[in-house]
């Protein structure tokens, strides 16, 4: 017994993997972990907003344009509202818009890419031409036009960003499908009598998931940025202030009140950078180097 327990630590050390392998996985992970760290701060802050501040983000007060102090950690804006609370609650709006519109984009993109890549031929031609049409439309411009015409409710903004953002995912997924559909296990499933739907959902989809995850991370960042941009142009929903809207309102006070623009800007940058680092880290981990956005 004593012998076997003495041998144990050594075998455990062997199981830890060779040094080169550890280094490589650390290189992948470094970017992912830094990204997660950057992303985690604004994400947690937005999630725990009611615990972190008692201030109502919409409550007006006579103390306008106060510099950051203990009472107002990030100062107050031109209407006396607490910037700290507005950044926290604004983060909720930005993140919700980002995640849900990315979800829409990913869903459409995956469906289009899988169908185009699997069936090839005419189906592929038609779907890819449609994809190209969406690709050449200037996304921001169309988003501006649509939101300007339909009004800037949060749901409309989400749908518009989602529907305009699926092209990248569709192309990545299609490229994977062109490879995967020639795999022998797909042929084996076909020979086993599986239908196209079953092959796509059960055999091929799990193989595409890593690419979808990477695409989702990048897509979320892009969507948050688009929303901020729309808000910055005054096309957001004023009753639900996002980071972009805060930045827009801060424009007039850039010289008097740096805190009004700096803190929402910082939160936005951290989130976008974080999402991109996570996306890139995962991409190199999955060996998916060429991920289109």
């Amino acid at each position, binding site marked *: 017994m004593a012998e076997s327990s003495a041998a144990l630590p050594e075998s455990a050390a062997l199981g830890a993997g060779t040094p080169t392998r550890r280094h490589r996985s650390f290189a992948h992970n470094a970017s992912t972990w830094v990204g997660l760290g950057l992303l985690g701060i604004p994400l947690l802050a937005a999630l725990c907003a009611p615990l972190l501040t008692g201030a109502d983000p919409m409550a007006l007060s006579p103390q306008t344009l106060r510099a950051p102090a203990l009472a107002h950690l990030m100062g107050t804006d031109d209407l006396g509202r607490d910037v700290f609370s507005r950044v926290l609650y604004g983060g909720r709006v930005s993140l919700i818009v980002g995640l849900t519109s990315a979800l829409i984009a990913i869903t459409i993109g995956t469906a289009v890419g899988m169908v185009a890549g699997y069936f090839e031929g005419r189906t592929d031609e038609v779907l890819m031409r449609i994809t190209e049409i969406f690709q050449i439309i200037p996304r921001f411009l169309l988003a501006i036009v649509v939101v300007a015409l339909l009004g800037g409710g949060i749901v409309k903004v989400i749908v518009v960003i989602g529907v305009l953002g699926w092209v990248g995912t569709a192309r990545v997924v299609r490229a994977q499908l062109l490879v995967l559909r020639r*795999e*022998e*296990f797909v*042929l*084996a*499933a*076909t*020979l*086993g*009598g*599986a*239908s196209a739907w*079953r092959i796509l959902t*059960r*055999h091929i989809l*799990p*193989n595409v998931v890593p690419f979808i995850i990477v695409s989702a991370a990048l897509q979320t960042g892009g969507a948050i940025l688009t929303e901020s941009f729309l808000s910055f142009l005054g096309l957001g929903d004023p009753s639900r202030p996002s980071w972009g809207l805060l930045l827009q309102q801060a424009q007039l006070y850039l010289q008097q009140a740096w805190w009004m623009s700096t803190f929402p800007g910082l939160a936005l940058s951290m989130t976008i950078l974080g999402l991109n680092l996570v996306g890139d880290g995962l991409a190199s981990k999955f060996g998916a180097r060429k991920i289109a956005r």
Partner: protein
Amino acid sequence: MTETAPSRTDAKALLAIEGLVVEFASAQGETFRASDGVSLTVAAGEVVAIVGESGSGKSVTARAILRLVPHPGRVRAGKIMFQGRDLLRMPREQVRELRGRDIAMVFQDPMTSLNPVLRVGAQIGEAIALHARLSASAIGARVLDLLRRVGIPATAERAHSFPHEYSGGMRQRAMIAMGVANSPALLIADEPTTALDVTIQDQIITLMRDLNRASGTAILLITHNVALVASLCTRVLVMYAGRIVEEGPTEEIFLSPQHPYTWSLLRSVPRVDTKDKKRLLAIKGQPPNPRDLPPGCKFEPRCPFAIARCRASEPALETVGAGHAARCFVMMKNAEAPA
């Protein structure tokens, strides 16, 4: 065309292919035939081999049986009768139901024919679930039973493993388990042992023989491995340039091959069971380019016994014995040894 081999008119045949022509068209509009007038039969419970070099059309013929000729190939003519119904004229949906239930297929490379992200048990289970309405627990039990039948130890745990946790031999066993999951009437094995090392090859052959004996599943074995044929099959078809050049009972093919190609093929394999130390013979030249076939016998340019007539016209498949036919003007029994 002269119909000769008596087995071909066998009414009880499980599978009967008649005059199958599979054509491939290149982008330039050229066409060539990967399979040109192939006829063969497989009786219920029989083990038949198709032997030939790469590019002889054996795999294409096999894929045509399941209506999965690789793009851009097309079946141009012929009939594929399976249990009395013509597969080539069957609606797509019915063919799909047939696949995996009545006809199953095992591939060459078990490394790539299992889905890397699904557990092995789940993949075998799916093969069952596609064709039978069974509860999850009933399927689970059948998966374990199948794994046990193909000799995979510690099955409950192994069913939960991913393909990368399996060795090559185990993966091919798992593929065979998938193939026989629904007790098909016919199992098509396309070079099932090519990617495996010799000891594992032998185990897979034994396994296939046992499955054939136990459940009466007919096997159509596609291979270029002559040793495999000898130990497993009752009948052999030799293919060359999209044609069957010789067919007959395994023993006859081995003991008295009549087509010079079959003869050369056998002479090119080292044997340990005979005393005579004949030199190994390599077949000279390359398999013919299917876009540019010789006008007469397709083997004529490489044939050591060729006569003038071989260049002018192509011989028909002629009976030389009981169930034994060859496509040759000369025939080995009449041939003079090459100078």
